[in-house]
């Protein structure tokens, strides 16, 4: 199977869906002529032209709101946020309009829009550019939230997201854009809401998603070699819908849980997971649910310290040892 980057996988998903459905439009700041702030959309303008690949002004509330309005009439915009961090200036459009319009119209309207872009820390860009809003987004019934960790997942999930008839928020990661993975040349889809066991194990389950999957896998490898601990890594891939069944199956196998997330801990995705696991698998647990999150402060700039603020393999190893102590 060919090895391609996460970035290329997303680009291929966009291209395939642009080919398949004339209503798909890619839109955002610098996506066309500049070839994408992260080169995700490189070459798309040349291939599909300015009607399908649209550069917008720096006007997130305006162009995302416009995309939502267009989606109500059947256009399928795939909007790029240069950083998901900028969702705050379009919050009303994203979470009042896209999330609520179906409900308030008694089901007469749906918004088949995708909003995608990177949402991560770890690049020394400070607090304004390092938000991970998947918990905030997923708090809104009516929307779907997807956070892929690999090139394979990114492609299959994005294609499903574009075909989905509800608003889907797709959170990528600038640090993952260059990561390579095996991606088949033939077409495939990954359904939203299906978790993936990225590594099998028997002593403890790590429930995680996004870049933390990579940290967890690296930690699992070290724990196996240095501590003879067998770690199972469950990659949620999608936050809402949530595949809690795969998590519970793993818990029933290992009886220990560590949640690893690049999230501020208060009311995070992990908080919800911990509630659900204790509620639905209380008798399976041999100990309290542990959690490793971002250290609770705005994202620090200082490069070596930011690594410590976020989940990383060393912190995951320590957290597993603590959970099993």
């Amino acid at each position: 199977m060919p090895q391609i980057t996460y970035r290329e996988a997303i680009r291929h998903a966009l291209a395939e869906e642009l080919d398949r459905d004339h209503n798909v439009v890619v839109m955002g700041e610098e996506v066309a002529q500049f070839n994408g702030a992260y080169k995700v959309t490189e070459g798309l303008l040349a291939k599909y032209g300015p009607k399908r690949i649209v550069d917008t002004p720096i006007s997130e509330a305006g162009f995302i709101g416009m995309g939502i309005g267009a989606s109500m009439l059947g256009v399928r915009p795939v909007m790029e946020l240069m950083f998901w961090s900028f969702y705050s200036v379009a919050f009303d459009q994203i979470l009042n309009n896209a999330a609520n319009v179906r409900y308030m119209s008694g089901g007469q309207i749906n918004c088949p829009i995708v909003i995608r872009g990177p949402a991560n820390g770890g690049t020394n860009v400070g607090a304004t550019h390092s938000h991970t809003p998947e918990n905030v987004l997923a708090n809104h019934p009516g929307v779907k939230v997807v956070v892929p960790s690999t090139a394979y997942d990114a492609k299959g999930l994005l294609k499903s997201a574009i075909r989905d008839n509800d608003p889907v928020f797709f959170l990528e990661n600038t640090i993952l854009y260059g990561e390579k993975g095996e991606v088949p040349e033939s077409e495939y889809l990954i359904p939203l809401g299906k978790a993936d066991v990225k590594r099998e194990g028997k002593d403890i389950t790590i429930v995680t998603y996004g870049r933390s999957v990579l940290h967890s896998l690296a930690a699992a490898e070290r724990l196996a070699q240095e501590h003879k601990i067998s770690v199972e890594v469950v990659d949620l891939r999608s936050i809402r819908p949530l595949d809690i069944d795969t998590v519970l199956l793993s818990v029933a196998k290992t009886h220990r849980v560590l949640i690893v997330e690049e999230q501020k801990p208060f009311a995070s995705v992990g908080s919800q997971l911990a509630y659900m696991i204790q509620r639905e698998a209380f008798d399976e647990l041999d100990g309290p649910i542990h959690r490793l999150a971002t250290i609770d402060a705005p994202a620090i700039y200082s490069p070596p310290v930011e690594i410590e603020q976020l989940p990383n393999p060393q912190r995951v190893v320590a957290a597993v040892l603590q959970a099993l102590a």
Partner: protein
Amino acid sequence: MSKKPTATSLTKDAEGASDPARHRRAPINAQLSTEERIELFRIMVRIRRFEERSLRAYQAKKIGGFLHLYIGQEAVAVGCCSLMGKNDHVITAYRDHGHAIAVGMDTKPLMAELYGKVTGCSKGKGGSMHYFDPSRNYWGGHGIVGGQIPLGTGLAYAVKYKGLKGAAMAFMGDGAVNQGAVHEAYNLAALWDLPVIFVVENNGYSMGTSQARSSAGDLARRADGYHMAWGTCDGHDVYEVRSVMNEFLQRAREQSKPAVVEIKTYRYRGHSVADPDKTYRDKSEIEEYQRTKDPINVFRSILIGDQVLTEAAAELIDTEARNEADIAANFAEASPFPTAEDIQKDVYWEIDHPEQRTSQGRLFFT
């Protein structure tokens, strides 16, 4: 209300300051049949009586939350919506009852929506501020001041993208023009030549704040900053609304050009029915407007003067409108509320179409 001359950069007719005769003669009005003229009148009366009836229901505690009445502004929605063709679309804010009736929605589900009944136009899930009927190209009914304007711009984008000849009318109040999202939408519409008319219904007040206390400069003229066409007109004369709006709509449909149109109007009631309406304007101001510019009375006089309508016929229309409002209230009263099971319907398209679901996993949480 301050009176400014009618000036559209389209007609270049700054002198034609509110010349009712000119607007009456405009082809879009001259071509109207007797029946069509009477129908315009009838819709205005139906809106008025519907809202008066809803106010009584509110006072009888049949309706919760807010109720923003459109009384006094009827000629704006009726004039604008009477110009709609197959590919034209409307979106507005929370003062949305008039537009809903003007696009042809049945008053029974509209009243039922106020009562929170499952027979409501949004199944009791939206309420007064959130009326919708996409089958009539009516996209709401939005509660956040200015938040609907990017959506309206998107409707125009979709019309253009699909190669259709149509336009979107995105309505807002005089207070909404100061929202950032509105200006972002202006810029996009002008930048990309989108067929959208931003209609500012200037009733002089945003809640209790007069225009002078909230907005610097002229409202429509802000379009100049985006090299967008703009115009103003008086909103108590349905013929004037139609003739001014028609020019901008035609231009939007034919040339895909946006515009801002500020329509001077006035609301008689408080901002919402909870507003005691005592702090920011004199009763005499309301009475003066009602006496000289009431859109229904003005049009009634024109129609009677033109021998399109008789006093008796006008009375009959009024009686029928009152009856219709009562029938709507009875319908609402007799209808059931949604059930607790209905709460989680109409959230996700996929959940409502289980046979077509492609995602897995949980979409709702406890």
